[in-house]
């Protein structure tokens, strides 16, 4: 059987040569390098914000009876969300005055936290007015947010005061949803004798500082706190894993690059290099010459693909390796090998998809101008429109956006979006635990087989479509 790809190698070599010499690719590669290396370095730095476990003020009111007289106090406990106290921190006690021009703070007192993280402030013997507002926060301007202290009329009837919260945390290798309580008896002493129940199962008691943490599993739960005859319940929701989440470290940077930068930049590079692969030949007349030479149409198309693909992947691989190096140096730890390999392979997959798409549209384009429009439209469809249309479709079908079937269907739809498929392919190399913050579309609902199969089908179908279309439409 005759070789259907006669001429493929020579055309590919010619394409690589001309692309690597073209200012277009050189400029794109430089911009790509700048973006990736800059992001790799920047994201490898410690990041402020909710994704990090930073200390905060747990602020409580307290009533201490001395010789029959009630003394009112504000108690500040400075600790991180895992309950690790921070001593030696100066906390300020502020009253807040609301007026027409906003809020005015008055520093009433300041105190340094003990080794156990506590600082206390006395207000006096009279119950503050119920509309009075107080807060405790570090006296430095920059720092964690304040904790409010409230003296309601019903406070005197309580046996404890409570600060509670829920956070999603991540580590370079795992993630967790947690629910925490900080409980003090009404006199400001940690309520170590309190009982904490999860779905009516006793979990334990607060620690010596009054802190108790629950790692929440996915689903609806009820947490109950019982202390000295009083109970308080809290509905707590653990979220479905949406994929592995990292807040810091080399893996986190790779995941973030996969979510934010790569689906944006790689298609741009691939489209900008290959959008006029066929249209340019047609317009400058060389396609006519090419078709009359000893090459087959399949050879021309595959040669064009290989030429553009290799020309793009060569600088992309160099930049990605350099990016991994930057991540490793800046975060002090190399990313997981499986993640790095998945990141590389998925990037090549994404480049191949967009080059094939561009070959198809370039074959259809009769002019370079039309080819440019096709390139922009393809980028917009998969970077902007697809998500919008997928959600529109699901909402219009009447599915409940909190139901599992909604996300199962969405995962199936995402198989038709190369950008999300790229992220799903990377997610295959990650642990399956997740949290509520970074959201990387995972293969969780589908499993690895459909995701890999979708990747293979994308490549095969686009290749066949490109070859058949070129054979039909290459008549100049």
């Amino acid at each position, binding site marked *: 059987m*005759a070789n259907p790809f*006669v*001429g493929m190698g*020579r*055309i590919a070599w*010619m394409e690589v040569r*001309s692309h690597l*010499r*073209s200012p277009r690719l050189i400029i794109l590669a430089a911009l790509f390098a700048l973006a990736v290396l800059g992001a790799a370095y920047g994201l490898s730095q410690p990041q402020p914000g909710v994704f990090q476990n930073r200390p905060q003020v747990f602020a409580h009111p307290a009533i201490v009876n001395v010789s029959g007289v009630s003394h009112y106090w504000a108690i500040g406990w400075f600790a991180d969300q895992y309950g690790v106290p921070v001593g030696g921190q100066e906390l300020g006690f502020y009253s807040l005055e609301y007026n027409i021009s906003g809020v005015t703070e008055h520093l009433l007192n300041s105190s340094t936290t003990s080794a156990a993280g506590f600082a206390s402030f006395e207000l006096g013997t009279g119950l503050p007015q119920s509309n009075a507002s107080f807060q405790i926060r570090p006296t430095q301007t920059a720092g964690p947010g304040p904790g409010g202290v409230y003296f309601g009329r019903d406070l005197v009837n309580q046996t404890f005061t409570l600060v509670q919260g829920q956070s999603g945390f991540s580590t370079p290798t795992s993630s967790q949803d947690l629910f925490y309580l900080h409980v003090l008896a009404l006199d400001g002493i940690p309520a170590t004798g309190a009982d904490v129940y999860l779905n009516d199962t006793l979990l334990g008691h607060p620690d010596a500082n009054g802190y108790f943490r629950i790692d929440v599993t996915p689903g609806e739960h009820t947490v109950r706190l019982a202390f000295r005859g009083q109970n308080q319940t809290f509905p707590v929701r653990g979220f479905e894993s949406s994929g592995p989440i990292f807040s810091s470290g080399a893996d986190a940077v790779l995941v973030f690059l996969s979510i934010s930068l790569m689906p944006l930049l790689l298609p741009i590079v691939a489209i900008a290099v290959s959008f006029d692969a066929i249209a340019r030949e047609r317009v*400058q*007349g*060389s396609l*006519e*010459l*090419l*078709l*009359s*030479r*000893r*090459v*087959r149409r399949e050879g021309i198309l595959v040669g064009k693909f290989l030429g553009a693909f290799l020309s793009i992947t060569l600088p992309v691989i160099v930049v990605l390796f350099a990016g991994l190096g930057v991540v490793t140096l800046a975060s002090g730890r190399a990313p997981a090998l499986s993640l790095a390999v998945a990141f590389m392979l998925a990037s090549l997959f994404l480049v191949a998809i967009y080059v094939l798409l561009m070959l198809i549209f370039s074959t259809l384009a009769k002019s370079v101008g039309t080819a440019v429009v096709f390139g922009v439209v393809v980028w917009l469809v998969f970077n902007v429109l697809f998500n919008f249309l997928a959600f529109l479709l699901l909402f219009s079908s009447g599915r409940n956006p909190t139901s599992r079937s909604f996300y199962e269907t969405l995962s199936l739809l995402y198989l038709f979006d190369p950008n999300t498929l790229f992220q799903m392919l990377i997610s295959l190399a990650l642990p399956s635990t997740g949290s509520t913050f970074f959201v990387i579309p995972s293969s969780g609902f589908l499993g690895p087989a459909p995701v890999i199969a979708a990747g293979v089908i994308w490549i095969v179908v686009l290749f066949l479509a490109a070859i058949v279309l070129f054979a039909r439409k290459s*008549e*100049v």
Partner: protein
Amino acid sequence: MARDDLASAAIRVQGLKKRYAAFRKPLDALLGVDLEIARGDAFGFLGPNGAGKTTTIRILATILSPTAGSAEVGGHDIREDPMAVRSLIGYMPENAGGYPLMTGQDNLLYWARLQDITGSGARERAKSLLATVGLEEAAGQKVKTYSHGMKKRLLMASALIHDPDILLLDEPAGGLDPQGIRFFRDLIHGLRQKGKTVFLSSHILSEVEQTCSTIGIIQKGRMVAVDRVEAIRQRVGAVAPARVEVDCDPPSASTVQLLRQIPKVRMVWSTPAGILVEAEPGADVADEITRVLVTDHVRIRAIRPFEPTLEDAFLSLLGGAPS
């Protein structure tokens, strides 16, 4: 048809049809073209714009597939064995260019590699062809800096890079200055002397007349005539008006009246050099014209019967009047 004739045909086209698909109105570019061109012949392919010349030549170059009919080039069917056809032909399109960002020499080397000519053989061949087409000095320049004429020369060199037996040239001298036209004419003469078959599509009738031994005229997708150039002229001569050009002093109105009364004379026009007389096809009126002018004492400097030109033949066969 004798077996020898079959073997000697470089190009054979039978019932060739081509329909361009279109959403609303498909276009029938060829409606059944028949052609046969002998090996070593130079065939001039004439026709008005849109007649189907370029479509035919592209089908022969295996760029387009015909809708119906068959075509053989060098004995190979264009559909069944296009790779063999591509080895035999050198195709020079009308409006193509090379790769503008590559040098002329690199363009040639690329086309050589695609014809399986590599290494030092390709470089020598490219160098020699660049010299042949007069681009030796511009060989290292990027093609985007070439003039129209230089690009045409480079295209010719590209077509010749693998020393093909059959050349398909679509308007090789289109848009060129007289020097360029002459260059291509000489080049094609040289190729004929080497025994190459030349299929030349052109609008420049004088170029075809001087270069080709056989011509074919196509109109609206159908061949109107295919014959030797002389035979075409004779056919035209039998049907075209006979004309006589006379260089003389301006004749008086009465002399012109007498000329018009000569049997078979249709029209008499004044020209800057004298007069032009048109008579019925095949009529020999030169002697009678001389007699009338001499009788009226009009001084004659020269008298020339007009031979029908290829242009006359072209226009006559396409239904237009000779100029």
